[in-house]
């Protein structure tokens, strides 16, 4: 096992993210499919990011088009990992979900998240404080604050009500956090506040045909490599209600001998996080490097 594809989640979106793929084979196919299924113009997704549904659908479109383009160019992953909403793109590439089902599920996921918490909730990023110390602070805290993402050993995201997040901010600073940054997100993703919505997604997934993965899939919830289709579907449905164990997943992949971590667009935050975090790996951003160059680097291994 040498190569993994990393699919970004929310936070990586950019208004021009479709631009490099306009007119390419996979993008146009997916665009058509989305427009047929949902009866709407995909360009509104990248125009208006105030809707999480828009953002998630845009990420699916770019994640799937860009990864299929890489595969066509001869860059084949040995496994796939998607961060939060990015997991749906990963599931499409591993062929657990059809693209059509993924579109419907991401659309539903977006709707459920928008309906659930109209206001008063959010997320904060905490930098420069060890993950274990943050967990201690959360456990000692009375209010509803949850560990949403462990992105790196010293970079995590918390979810909760704005009041609780304001209250915990002070303690985190006191314990030595370098920065505590409110994110422009209006929902408490990856927390038990989404248990009901996770159940609704589970129900929706009962009615679709799922297939055995062609590529092993990295679980958001458990940081395990999954080869079983039921476990993958459970991860897709349940991940909005539990912590994304991204850092542990990356560590697990390095221990399995993965050397090439290829981040798909948009952005480069996941490949940036890996730089310096692990020895002896290549963290490559598709957005920053040409496909030919990536192919060269991957074949060198």
């Amino acid at each position, binding site marked *: 096992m040498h190569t993994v594809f990393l699919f970004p989640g929310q936070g990586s979106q950019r208004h021009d993210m479709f631009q490099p793929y306009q007119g390419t084979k996979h993008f146009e196919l997916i665009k058509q499919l989305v427009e047929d299924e949902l009866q709407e113009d995909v360009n509104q997704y990248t125009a208006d990011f105030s809707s999480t549904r828009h953002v998630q659908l845009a990420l699916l479109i770019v994640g799937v088009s860009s990864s299929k383009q890489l595969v066509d160019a001869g860059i084949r992953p040995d496994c796939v990992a998607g961060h939060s909403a990015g997991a749906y793109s990963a599931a499409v590439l591993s062929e657990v979900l059809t693209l059509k089902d993924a579109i419907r599920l991401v659309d539903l996921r977006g709707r459920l998240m928008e309906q659930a918490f109209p206001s008063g909730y959010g997320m904060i990023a905490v930098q420069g404080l060890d*993950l274990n110390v943050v967990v201690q602070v959360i456990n000692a805290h009375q209010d509803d604050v949850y560990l949403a993402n462990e992105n790196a050993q010293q970079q995590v995201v918390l979810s909760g009500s704005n009041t609780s997040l304001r209250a915990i901010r002070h303690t985190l600073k006191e314990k030595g956090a370098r920065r505590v940054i409110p994110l422009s997100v209006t929902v408490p993703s990856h927390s038990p506040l989404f248990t009901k919505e996770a159940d609704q997604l589970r129900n929706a997934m009962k009615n679709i045909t799922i297939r055995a993965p062609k590529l092993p899939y990295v679980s958001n919830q*458990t940081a395990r490599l999954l080869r079983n289709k039921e476990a993958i579907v459970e991860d897709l449905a349940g991940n909005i209600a539990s912590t994304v164990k991204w850092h542990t997943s990356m560590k697990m992949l390095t221990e399995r001998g993965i050397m090439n971590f290829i981040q798909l667009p948009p952005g480069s935050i996941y490949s940036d996080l890996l730089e310096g975090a692990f020895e002896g790996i290549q963290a490559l951003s598709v957005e920053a490097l040409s496909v030919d160059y990536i192919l060269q680097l991957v074949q060198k291994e």
Partner: protein
Amino acid sequence: MSSVSRPEHLDLFEKGIADRLDFSFSGPQSTRIAQMIEDEEIKVGNIHTYIELYGRLFIDLIPNVALVAADQADANGNLYTGANTEETPTIVEATAFKNGIVIVQVNQIVEELPRVDIPASWVDVIVLGDEPYQLEALFTRDPKHITEIQILMAMLAIRGVYEKHSVQSLNHGIGFNTAAIELLLPTYGESLNLRGKICKHWAANPHPTLIPAIESGWIDSIHSFGGEKGMEQYIAARPDVFFVGSDGTMRSNRTLCQMAGQYAVDLFIGSTLQMDYVGNSSTVVRGRLAGFGGAPNMGHDPKGRRHSTKAWLDMKNPDDDLIRGRKLVVQMMETHQPGNRPVFVEQLDAIAVANEAKLDTPPVMIYGEDVTHLVTEEGVAYLYKSDSPAERKEAIAAVAGVTELGLTSTPRQKQRLREQGIIATTDDLEIDVKKANRSLLAAKSIEELVMWSDSLYDPPEKFRSYWT
């Protein structure tokens, strides 16, 4: 299996080929092994000290089949294992003499071996590998990354422990803290006029950072657990210091070196990720089960020791007529890990990990009762002098800095502990803090280590990439 270090080792369990594991070290697979234990894909017998595991190979874990690697075999099946002999003879002996089957992967089959490390009559099957077995530089620490705090702590250790007790023989692990000590011997150590008085005999891997001390005449002998990539030619040129065969290459032996490090040296020094308030320490933290390497063997007092040295006798209980010394077990670490994580914790994660993984005993690396000294950037705590658990905790707190434990220590307590000689600060030890900077390192880069070695040290590629 003493060291779980390759993905394939755990794949055996994932594929259901194996299900029970007794081991010592799993650093390179620490996350995955923790996951697999939690998922019950692996049943752990025990996490052993090395010598304990090697011992059990002859008692109740006798191998039926052993799979080992060697550099070369001859037509008769004799093996050359060279610098990387490590525990191979122990495993092969336990297998071959109790009806087991010994299967060896070799890099090469040759007419004549440089020397015989394992005789043919102990070997059943030889397989010629299609590529050489993997060998990585594990003990090389680039001096470039040594910080000024580490240099200050190294000064505290040299002055407050090594010099104070005239430490003659010792083990160093692989951390940057101890690399800093090694690189301060020819500079700071020399300025204290300590050459020939401390650090003469070592049970240690051939760390490249030892080169300046060797070249400056500090070191009489080094016996090693294993080899180190890039050090081959340098070692061949220094048979006066290293254990080298008549063929000119080093012979390592992990079993014997661990035993030497346990029984025959004055001092063990190491670092930890967590220490509780009475001095128990562990590198096992939640979600990561790394095992311990050599620390638990060498980091404890072997109570059967008889031979005496000044350092050993310094640890004796002055009220005991049966004069018995103790091994010096030194823990050396900064009070905070990166990300402001305090090293000092009320309870070790190891206790929760043992519960989750259903282990009989928590994986403690070094037990508090064995720790004689603690060195942090705040000073040295002479824990062997404390005579109650409460005083021990006070002494640890006094050097615990701005951690929850450290903040319990009052200025009055600290003053009393200093007067009793239970703790010592840089002032007490007359250390000039201003001198604690990188210019004090005998070598500040890998390149300078190469120069010290007269170009005999040949660093692996990954340490060369910085060169211009």
